């Protein structure tokens, strides 16, 4: 084949869209497919449904190689079809493959003979082999999307992990040509290995987070400061400068928890020992409620008429998403007390609470409250002057789990400043 292979991504949610734009940026003609005609129409107009740094610019720059379709005809002209919808999970960490299965069936029915079909969505081990077809082998490629860094991850991956039913055989030339354009190592492996590789990566990340959370809690009791320890760990080559060592409110987001649930479920099914993974989940559940416990012990037990302020509603900064938001979970559990909230992008109505009011600014949310909790580390909160907060507040208690505020300035302003990992 002399021409570059044509690429298709099925499922224009976060993963599929960012991956399609990345493919176009590498010079490939790319089709973005989705069964939702409205979404496709918006994409054609350049209205992107996800917010990611650099995505709009990259989209516009390579717009000429991108097309979008809600009918399957253009898929027949493609050489590699990635099936890539985001896979939703329920509260128990169980994946819902309904959309993925539908798109996979559609890809199989639409692809021309000789085209390569790759499952890119995250699935539990066994998914891809269970759907293998004799006449058309399916491949599984590990996605390593990170919210907030999706473009960087899609255009400059560290490596590709590609599962096939027989990794001793070379990958289809069209797939290899496509992947080689990214200039990173390609690691062929068994289907089950690739499916488990994604979970393995996330388990390693969770291990780091859990170490940080476990020892940060100990720091809070013995006079140590985890923020002094973590940089030292990152200079250890065996740990590494990019290790996830910032303490947090458990393991944020649902994807990591989904993987823990998957490992536990598989270990139960196969009789393997997974006590460590259960411990990860237990520690996460414990640390998630740090703000709730601290509010009760430091304030609410003695002040039944307390008024509270919460800064940030989204589950992390730079996103509209409130799914699995620790802020909303906290507010839900504070029903007896009036709560004033402010978030740069989400309205107060997102919070389930009988007496919640929205503020137009962080300072307004702090006015006359007895305690202020910074639940999302939005950049604009970093510029808040603790002295101004102290002036606005009725009480002194400030919970800042992510160290968004200047802790020294907060103490200088005579605030009762509390954060993770320090006594």
């Amino acid at each position, binding site marked *: 084949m002399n021409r570059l292979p044509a690429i298709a991504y099925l499922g224009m949610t976060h993963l599929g869209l960012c991956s399609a734009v990345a493919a176009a940026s590498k010079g490939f003609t790319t089709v973005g497919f989705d069964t939702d005609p409205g979404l496709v129409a918006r994409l054609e107009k350049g209205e992107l449904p996800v917010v990611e740094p650099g995505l709009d610019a990259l989209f516009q720059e390579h717009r000429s190689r991108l097309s979008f379709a809600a009918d399957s005809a253009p898929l027949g002209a493609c050489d590699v079809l990635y099936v890539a919808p985001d896979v939703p999970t329920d509260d128990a960490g169980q994946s819902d493959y309904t959309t993925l299965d539908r798109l996979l069936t559609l890809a199989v029915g639409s692809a021309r003979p000789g085209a390569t079909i790759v499952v890119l969505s995250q699935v539990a081990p066994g998914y891809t082999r269970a759907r293998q077809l004799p006449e058309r082998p399916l491949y599984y490629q590990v996605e390593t999307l990170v919210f907030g860094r999706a473009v960087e991850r899609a255009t400059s991956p560290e490596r590709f992990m590609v599962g096939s039913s027989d990794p001793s055989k070379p990958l289809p030339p069209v797939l290899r040509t496509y992947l080689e354009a990214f200039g990173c190592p390609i690691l062929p492996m068994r289907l089950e290995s690739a499916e488990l590789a994604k979970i393995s990566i996330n388990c390693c990340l969770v291990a780091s987070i859990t170490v940080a959370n476990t020892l940060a809690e100990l720091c809070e009791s013995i006079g140590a400061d985890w923020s002094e320890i973590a940089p030292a760990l990152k200079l250890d080559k065996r740990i590494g400068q990019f290790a996830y060592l910032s303490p947090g409110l458990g393991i944020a987001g649902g994807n990591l928890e989904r993987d823990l649930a998957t490992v536990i479920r598989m270990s139960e099914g196969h009789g393997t020992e997974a006590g460590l993974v259960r411990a990860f989940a237990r520690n996460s559940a414990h640390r998630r409620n740090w703000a709730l*416990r601290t509010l009760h012990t430091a304030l609410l037990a003695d002040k039944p008429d307390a008024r509270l302020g919460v800064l940030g509603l989204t589950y992390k900064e730079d996103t509209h998403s409130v799914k699995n938001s620790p802020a909303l979970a906290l507010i839900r*559990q*504070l029903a007896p007390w009036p709560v004033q909230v402010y978030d740069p992008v989400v309205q107060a109505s997102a919070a389930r609470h009988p007496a919640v009011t929205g503020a137009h600014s962080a300072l307004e949310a702090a006015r006359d409250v007895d305690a202020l909790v910074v639940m999302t580390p939005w950049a604009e909160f970093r510029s808040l002057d603790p002295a101004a907060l102290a002036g606005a507040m009725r009480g002194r208690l400030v919970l800042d789990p992510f160290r968004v505020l200047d802790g020294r300035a907060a103490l200088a302003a005579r605030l009762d400043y509390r954060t993770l990992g320090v006594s």
Partner: protein
Amino acid sequence: MLTHTQSDGSLTPDRVVVVGAGGFVGSAIVNGLGTAGIPTVAVARAQVDLLAADASEKLSALLVPGDVVVFVSAVAPAKTSAQLLTNLTMARAGAVAFAGVPPSHLLYISSDAVYVDDANPVTEASPVAPSTIHGMMHAARELIFRTEARAPFAVLRPTLIYGAADPHGGYGPNRFRRQAASGDPITIFGEGEERRDHVAVEDVARLVVRMIRHGSVGVLNAVTGVSTSFHDIAHMVAANFTPAAVVQPVSRPGPRPHLLHRFFDITSCYQAFPDFHFERLPDGLARVHREVAAANGKGTVRVGAS
């Protein structure tokens, strides 16, 4: 890990039957229900001897369908196999009665002794793996009721309970208070370094009332979330006397307990009853001291104090 069937806590049962109403905890629960204005039927041994052959029939005869039942009757602490079997016999009588006349809501007052020793911090999700006969007794009784009683079921697992009416003389606040009141030094074993959670019996009763009003099912620990060393508890008790009682370390009667400390994470209580807060131990001990002194018609001066 409680689930409320009535989230606003507005349930008002026609009546609540307290089985074991004559005991320290049972009588506090009866008082708590009375304070809350909930009609209560107090069943003590005088009404039904749960070890009698006809216990189930007698208890059944006292019940009407739709009763809320609190089962708190126990021979505690259970330290021997005989006491274990006695307690199981009592539970069986209750379970048979409840199977015949199903309550609308059944609460069992258990114990934190059901948890595995190394679960710190203990939560309602900690493994039930008791290391004592007392813990096994409660775990077995929980299972009996959960399996055989045909009723929405809740378990309250208190930790060490204190109160003015506590008849037990076990190591802890009540013994310390009695020692000091008698003019004796308060004796602590070793340095008294073991840290434990202690809950006021009135708080246990308040939680029972809340669980009834919310129609709660599941498990809740009745624990304050604050663990205090016996050394500090002894000094808190001592400070309530004028002059302060003497605290005297003595040799341990046996080896240091393998369970040196026990801590609890009470997040689930904050979630179940956000505006419920426990009486702090120093406040509770001072209140108990005043109550005992008032009941005895005495001040807070130690016997023998000059």
